[in-house]
């Protein structure tokens, strides 16, 4: 294939890839990007035929493109710019006249990819980026060859002009001469080996890029792009909205899109995750609604229950964009730590946190939670009263209720005076919640909050007319006939639903869904169970609300994360008890939670590998921050220090430093491995080079153009001052040199050289010995030159 054809193809591939990059972001209309992208194909044929738009037409159309882009993307400057770039790319392709014009195509494509980088943070960009580097490497290399040939022709043409005293490479006359010369000569051709050489070059570029990416100091001002208004609403995930249509979960639970990655930061990791998202209080028979009490900038401090009987667990939540605005945390959230530039609101009544604007990019935050295993729940009325000045409840050492009770019996109760974690710059402050604090009757603000909470709890007992029926009321009363306390009643309803009802994703209930579910179909998904339990409890005047979140058991060992998918969306119940707060109940049968992944083992493995890539992409690229850089530096410093100490104290023979307390490899274990690998490679390289040298000696006779040992000796002799003149034959030179003291054997060595050089002899062992001795001798003379009068 000739270089011009290959180059043209690569240029169009690069241009096409720019459109693919923009298309993969999903932020621009597919119709616009797709249509303009498809016009790249005809451009290839257009160019191959040697056609091109005239410069005048190109300029006019560029102005027109600017106007169209301004109109289409008038709502957003970035959009308008990207539309213009897309149109401009087409004009550059259709107006291409010389090799230099291809550089404009590359430039515009670069800005297309930059636009994609601004619009997306998906792991798909990694693929886009890698392919882009490969294509750009190919394009630039071919450009260099093609443009180099052009420059050569221009130089020749300028030189050939008889009337030009000083060559002007870009004059019209030169262009004519260049074209004439081009017509005379054959185009440059290439071979498959050239194409293969692109791969290592692209790899080198990627490696260098990765290195610089790591060392660029991440000191940002965060003003340019994040302040822009959201371009598209997040993907509709109706389980996590202000108002949720009943039955939404049926569709969601068939969707395997990843909603979250959760990395446990504390050890040991839990066996499952119950991520709490939004609590809904109002039900009108068709949909659940959250009464908004959101306050911007409210500290992200949750207070769902006053009881704290387990240790805090820390989780790193990696949330892809476009899923939901809600923030999630394990069962009983304590607090969340978000980057300062993320704007959120917090609803202190429903204990839900959500973003003000949907983010275009993946983001991560740390959630601190306490777990509340269902089997550890205790009737709040049987718990000792929480002291007003109570201390933190000691964490239970096991999950058994007896142990928990024993811990409580020690009189450890209350949590409000727990000292907050020190606030870090850019993170929300941690402070105690207010509305569950004992109310000071003279504090008006506290009274107002208390009133709000009372009203909220009252709202959590309200029912729509069609559900406040005697049938349901009687059913609730019948199920809770033997229960004495509110807790017992809730437990009875939960147990009844879990044991006597079936989990099903089929939509079997009709008409009055809840009544039909409870009395006739007795099959449904978590939404039915949770809503039914809330309805029954509210029929008993017990405040209850529905909580939507996720329940995941999908642990990815490679990435060390829980993968939370849309299909893991789950609905459960929180019941309010005085002096305790909200307690979690889950009436869904066990078959309805933590369902196995409905894929083959192979597909599951592939899915997990993809998830691992995504997590690592998010963690090490998208969210790579200054603190990560500092962390790596600290790790490096610690590793070096440890290594030096180990060397100083002869402790390096111990191997226990390789593992940390958590059982994971210490950071400098990798460093040691890398250093060992590098040393091994160096040794291998030295061995290889030495063996090659020896091989050259052995094969000296087979070489036709030169004899290596003779060349080496000539170099040594030259350093000693015996330089062979160009007019001298080797024998003449040998006669001259052999006359010198200590260099007599050179005569016979020259004869050996003649035999090898012209007769094709191979060196014998005595000859090799002679040559080696002579070489050693002259090398020694070189190091210790003889005095001038010595001989």
């Amino acid at each position, binding site marked *: 294939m000739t270089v011009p054809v290959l180059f043209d193809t690569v240029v169009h591939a690069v241009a096409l890839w720019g459109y693919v990059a923009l298309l993969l972001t999903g932020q621009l209309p597919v119709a616009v990007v797709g249509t303009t992208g498809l016009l790249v194909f005809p451009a290839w044929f257009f160019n191959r035929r040697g056609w091109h738009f005239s410069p005048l037409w190109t300029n006019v159309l560029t102005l027109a493109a600017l106007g169209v882009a301004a109109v289409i993307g008038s709502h957003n400057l970035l959009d308008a710019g990207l539309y213009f770039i897309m149109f401009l790319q087409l004009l550059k392709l259709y107006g291409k006249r010389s090799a230099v014009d291809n550089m404009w195509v590359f430039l515009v494509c*670069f800005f297309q990819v930059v636009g994609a980088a601004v619009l997306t943070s998906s792991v798909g960009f990694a693929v886009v980026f890698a392919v882009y580097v490969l294509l750009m490497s190919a394009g630039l290399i071919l450009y260099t060859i093609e443009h*180099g040939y052009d420059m050569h022709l221009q130089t020749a043409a300028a*030189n050939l002009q008889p009337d030009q005293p000083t060559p002007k490479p870009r004059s019209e006359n030169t262009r004519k001469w260049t074209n004439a010369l081009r017509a005379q000569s054959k185009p440059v051709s290439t071979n498959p080996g050239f194409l293969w050489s692109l791969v290592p070059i692209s790899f080198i570029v990627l490696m260098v890029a990765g290195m610089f*990416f790591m060392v660029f100091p*991440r000191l940002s001002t965060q003003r340019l792009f994040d302040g822009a208004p959201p371009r598209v609403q997040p993907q509709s995930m109706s389980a996590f909205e202000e108002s949720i249509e009943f039955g939404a979960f049926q569709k969601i639970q068939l969707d395997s899109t990843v909603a979250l990655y959760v990395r446990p930061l504390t050890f040991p990791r839990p066996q499952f995750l119950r991520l709490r998202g939004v609590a809904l209080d109002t039900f009108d028979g068709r949909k659940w609604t959250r009464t908004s009490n959101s306050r911007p900038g409210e500290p992200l401090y949750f207070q769902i229950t006053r009881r704290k009987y387990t240790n805090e667990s820390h989780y790193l939540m990696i949330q892809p964009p476009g899923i939901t605005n809600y923030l999630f945390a394990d069962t009983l959230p304590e607090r969340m730590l978000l980057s300062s530039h993320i704007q959120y609101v917090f609803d202190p009544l429903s204990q839900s946190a959500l973003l003000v604007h949907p983010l275009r990019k993946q983001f991560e935050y740390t959630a601190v939670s306490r777990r509340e295993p269902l089997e550890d729940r205790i009737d709040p009325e049987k718990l000792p009263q929480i002291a007003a000045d109570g201390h933190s409840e000691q964490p239970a050492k096991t999950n058994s209720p007896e142990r928990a009770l024993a811990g409580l019996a020690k009189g450890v109760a209350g949590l409000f005076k727990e000292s907050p974690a020190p606030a870090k710059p850019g993170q929300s402050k941690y402070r105690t919640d207010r509305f569950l604090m004992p109310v000071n009757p003279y504090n008006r603000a506290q009274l107002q909050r208390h009133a709000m909470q009372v009203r909220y709890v009252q709202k959590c007992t309200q029912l729509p007319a069609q559900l406040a029926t005697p049938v349901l009321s009687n059913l609730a009363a019948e199920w809770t006939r033997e229960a004495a306390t509110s807790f017992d009643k809730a437990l009875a309803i939960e147990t009844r639903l879990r044991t006597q009802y079936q989990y099903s994703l089929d939509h079997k209930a009709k008409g009055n869904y809840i009544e039909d579910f409870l009395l006739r179909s007795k099959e449904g998904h978590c939404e039915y169970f949770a809503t039914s339990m809330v309805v029954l409890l509210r029929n008993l005047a017990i405040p209850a609300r529905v909580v939507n979140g996720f329940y995941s058991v999908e642990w990815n060992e490679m990435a060390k994360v829980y993968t939370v998918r849309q299909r893991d969306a789950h609905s459960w119940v929180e019941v309010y008890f005085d002096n305790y707060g909200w307690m979690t109940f889950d009436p869904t049968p066990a078959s309805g939670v933590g369902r196995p992944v409905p894929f083959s083992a192979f597909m599951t493995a592939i899915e997990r590998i993809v998830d691992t890539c995504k997590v690592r992409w998010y963690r090490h690229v998208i969210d790579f921050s200054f603190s990560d850089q500092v962390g790596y530096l600290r790790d490096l410093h610690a590793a070096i220090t440890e290594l030096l100490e180990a060397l100083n104290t002869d402790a390096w023979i111990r191997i226990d430093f390789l593992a940390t307390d958590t059982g994971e490899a210490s950071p400098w274990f990798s460093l040691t491995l890398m250093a060992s690998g590098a040393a091994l490679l160096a040794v291998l390289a030295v061995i290889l080079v030495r063996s090659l040298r020896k091989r050259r000696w052995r094969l000296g006779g087979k070489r036709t153009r030169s004899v290596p040992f003779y060349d080496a000796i000539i170099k040594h002799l030259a350093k000693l001052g015996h330089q062979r003149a160009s007019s001298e034959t080797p024998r003449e030179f040998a006669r001259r040199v052999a006359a010198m003291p200590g260099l007599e054997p050179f005569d016979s060595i020259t004869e050996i050289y003649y035999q090898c050089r012209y007769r094709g002899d191979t060196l014998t062992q005595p000859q090799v010995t002679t040559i080696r001795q002579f070489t050693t001798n002259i090398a020694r003379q070189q190091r210790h030159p003889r005095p001038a009068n010595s001989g």
Partner: protein
Amino acid sequence: MLESMKSDSPIGVPDGSPPGTPRRSLSYSPSRVRRYLRRYRLTTEGWLVIVIITLVGIAAWHSGTNLLYLMCSMLIGFLLTQSVLIVLCLSGLKVRRILPKYAYAAEETRYRVAVSNGKRFANSYSLRLIEHTSRRRVVACGYVARAPRHSTAEASMIAHFPERGLYTLGYLEVRTRYPFGLSERARMFTSPEELVVFPPRADVTAVFGSASGDFGEEESRVKGTGTQLYGLTEYTPGMHARRIHWRSSAKTNKLMVIEHERDELRKASVVLWNVEPADSLAESPDTRAHFEQAVTYAAGLARLLISEGYEVSLVTAEGSVPHGTGSGHLHRILRTLATIELGTSARPPARHRTHGGESEFGVVFSDSNRNLTSGVKQTDVRQLDIRNHRFVPRNMA
């Protein structure tokens, strides 16, 4: 093979250091750094990339978008990879000219340059070869798209020598922008070689043709085996029967045979009296240009005459090239004309001796007062009328 120049000279500016200067050891020295920097320059594309790196870097810093940092790093990756591979591309190269014996001025000349790539593992790509004379003038350029590793590639050099003369091809510069075209690096190879450039090939038929006629032709009146009729004579035994002229034999009733004249080679001399003339030509402001034109015409005339079968000699103020014919003789004349210079000293005129009226003179550049043509009929002398670009008889010039 040409030797790589190890001097501090910048691209295209040789310093004339003698070939074979021993290579200095590989160590840091400011001059080495300076030399490297002089031979390395960023191209327009390279500067563009630096500007883009700056802009994208600012955007990345401002927005904290890591993917912009990644794009920025990619561009830096391209720049650094370019800096390393461009050095690798030019290392291990040797070049050797394969020159022709002569070239003509003012026309395209091609010759080859063998580029040997001694590297074991890496090919070299996109090598531009630029030939400089010792006067730093670019006279030829060539291109090698690919020099495979451990192999030799040949470049076809397109040369153009504007003037005649002996050119010393002093420096062969090898430039490359491989791999990404963001920077350019040059390496100079020194090995002066000489190439004689003949005067331009001018078509003098139009100039000389009108005045030529039977220029130089003369009856020899000696019997021989030529084509012209010498006479009729009576047949004697031993004569070839084919030569019998039957019509005359019938008229005279005796056997008559035809006798032919001996064919003589026509001889001409081209006189280029390279002494600054003292007559009206000397008053011309562009005597030099006229002289060059005269040299061109002299060369064209010699070529024309030899191609028409003349024995041609060249007469100059320094000496003469004797009569001869054939392409070898033409090259001898052209070589003399290639290096002839216009002298100013009044050397004693070398009177050209003619050989009994056997030759005629086409005088193309001389002092009209000078008598160079003793023994020759003046009507057989053609003098170049340099202003009107035509040859005229000497007495009319």
